Each structure stands twice: as structure tokens, then as C-alpha cells.
């Protein structure tokens, strides 16, 4: 307990010594409404716990490097030089890492008949073997297209929900059967247009 308090004091003193105005996180740039001039309230998570190292490249060099990476990735996409694609998709309240031809089980009812094709629109990330496209937080709908087919709409196995309090003569038993849907991901398509 005392050791953690000492370390907390250490972190705070380190924080006071370091110049604050150099830290320009994107979050700080967005919220500029404080009256005292501070961009964001300073918390223990405002900066990473490792010391900040200035990058060895200058700003122009970094920009040129970024441009080179973007042009390489654009070229790969235009020439369709990638193999199998995977994607992280937000569907039914969960995020799934998804490739072509794989199966997904959703624990609710979907308003689509068996055999119908569905397009999944909330795509967070698409990756191939050599490059990854990360959305902030979503990728555009004209960039990625993920299609799935509804294969099966069943019910789950009868799950037992039992509550029991010992020495109180209390027990309740309930059988829960949930509707389930099985989706088959037909494929992920990447459009040859990247801004």
C-alpha cells in the first residue's frame, strides 16, 4: 500500500517536470473548450507510461514515408494483388473477425429468410497478408463489401436456468430456448478506390 502511494507520487512528480504543451494528442486537438487554457483534463491515462521519444525522422521525411506507404497499398489494391482478406465486422452487438466461407452463430432472430443474402455494413478493419486498412472507427461503405447468407434459423438447446438458496427452501427452475441464426460469410470485396 505504501509502496503504491510512493510510486503514485513519483509518477505525479515526473508528470509535473515534463513539459505539457509538447503533448498534442488528437483528442487534445478536438476538445478546446477549457477556460484555463488546458486542452484536456490531465489523468493518469493522458500519456503512455513510457518516456516520449522524438522520432528520428523530420516532419517532411515522415510525410514522404506515409505517402510512400499509402501509394504502395493503393497500387496493391488497384492491381488486386492480395490473397485472402479478413475483416472485423460489428454485427449483433459483437465484433467478429471474419473471412470468406466461415460460419457465424447469432443468438437472436434476423429479419431475413433462409437463403437470403445480407450485406454487413459496419466494418472496422480489413486486412490482407501484407497490408491492413483500419477504420476510424468504421471503413467506408464504398470501400469494403461483406456479404453473408442466412443458412439456418433454429433454436438453441434447452438451457437450464436454476436458482437455489441453501437452507431457505428456495429453488426456481426455468428452461431457456433462444432463437439462433447461422450465417455463412460469402466473401469480402475491396474496392479499388482509396482516399
Amino acid at each position, binding site marked *: 500500500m505504501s509502496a503504491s502511494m510512493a510510486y503514485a507520487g513519483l509518477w505525479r512528480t515526473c508528470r509535473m517536470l515534463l513539459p505539457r504543451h509538447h503533448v498534442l494528442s488528437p483528442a487534445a486537438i478536438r476538445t478546446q473548450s477549457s477556460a484555463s487554457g488546458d486542452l484536456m483534463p490531465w489523468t493518469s491515462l493522458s500519456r503512455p507510461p513510457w518516456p516520449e521519444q522524438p522520432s528520428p525522422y523530420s516532419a517532411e521525411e515522415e510525410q514522404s514515408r506515409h505517402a510512400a506507404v499509402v501509394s504502395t497499398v493503393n497500387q496493391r489494391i488497384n492491381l488486386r494483388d492480395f*490473397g485472402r482478406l479478413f475483416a472485423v465486422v460489428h454485427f449483433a452487438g459483437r465484433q*467478429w473477425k471474419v473471412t470468406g466461407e*466461415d460460419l457465424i452463430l447469432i443468438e437472436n432472430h434476423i429479419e431475413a429468410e*433462409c437463403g437470403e443474402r445480407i450485406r454487413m455494413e459496419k466494418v472496422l478493419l480489413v486486412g490482407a*497478408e501484407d497490408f491492413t486498412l483500419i477504420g476510424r472507427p468504421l471503413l467506408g461503405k464504398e470501400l469494403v463489401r461483406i456479404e453473408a*447468407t442466412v443458412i439456418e434459423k433454429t*433454436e438453441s438447446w434447452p438451457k*437450464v436456468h436454476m436458482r437455489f438458496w441453501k437452507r431457505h427452501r428456495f429453488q426456481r427452475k426455468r428452461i431457456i430456448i433462444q432463437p439462433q441464426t447461422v450465417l455463412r460469410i*460469402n466473401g469480402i470485396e475491396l474496392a479499388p478506390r482509396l482516399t
Partner: protein
Amino acid sequence: MTSRGTPSRFLRSVLQNGVGRYVCQLKRISIVFSKKAQSSLGARDFIEEGVVDYANKNPGTVVYVSPQPCRVPKIVAEYLNGNVREETITSKTSQQISELLTKLTNQSGLEIIRIRKPFHTDSPSIQGLWHPFTNRPPSIGPLRPQKPDSQ
């Protein structure tokens, strides 16, 4: 019982259904009912009204209607993977029987037991599996064969 005491299986589909075309997994439906009993009333109503529409809507499923002297009317559903499911329809209305039939049509024939994982992939890794040496620079330089000391 608990999930440990009951059998379980992994999520799968019958013969990669859905990769190409979707195929309805229900092969055959037999409606066994009695002509006179009270419990088969709903079954008889369903056969009067709804059976023909159901058969037309599902062209891939064969519907057999067999009136027999039986106490318990039932629906026997056979699937493409060979599994057979029997559901009793005693004292059910025609509407309930049609809902039951749609439920059976939408199922594949796999057993309704605990499914271990809600996903299944045949290619789990695209960028390569992680091992402790991925994304780490080598700490020692490139290894070269050592020159023998005599030369």
C-alpha cells in the same frame, strides 16, 4: 442437465451449405394423424388449408400425408444428413402446426445440443500465427560461420 453432462458439438453446416447455393435441408415431411380423434383436429385443419401452400412454397421437400388410426398425431421430418426428428402435434391449432413446420424447414438436420463456439473458420490465420519472435528486431547481429583459428 448441465452443459458438461450433455453432449456438445462444434458449429458446422452440412456439406458447406451457403458457399455456393443455399439448399433447404429438409428432405421429407410425413404428417401422421387420425381421421376421427380429437387430438388430430388441428392436423386435419392444417391439411385442409395449409399443406398445399406449404408444399408449393418448399419445392425441395416432399410432403407425405398419412391418415392412420393413431392416438398421437405427429410430424416426422427427415433431413439431408439422415437425421430424423419427430414432433407431436396433439391438440395444436393449424396456426401452431404451420409455425412448427416453418421452424423445421429452417433448421438443418444437425443435433440441437450445446454448440461449443459460435464461429467456425477453415482459415483462421491470414497474416501468420503469432510466435514470440514476430515483430521483434534481432538482438544479436546476423550469424556468420566462425573462421577456424588455424587459418
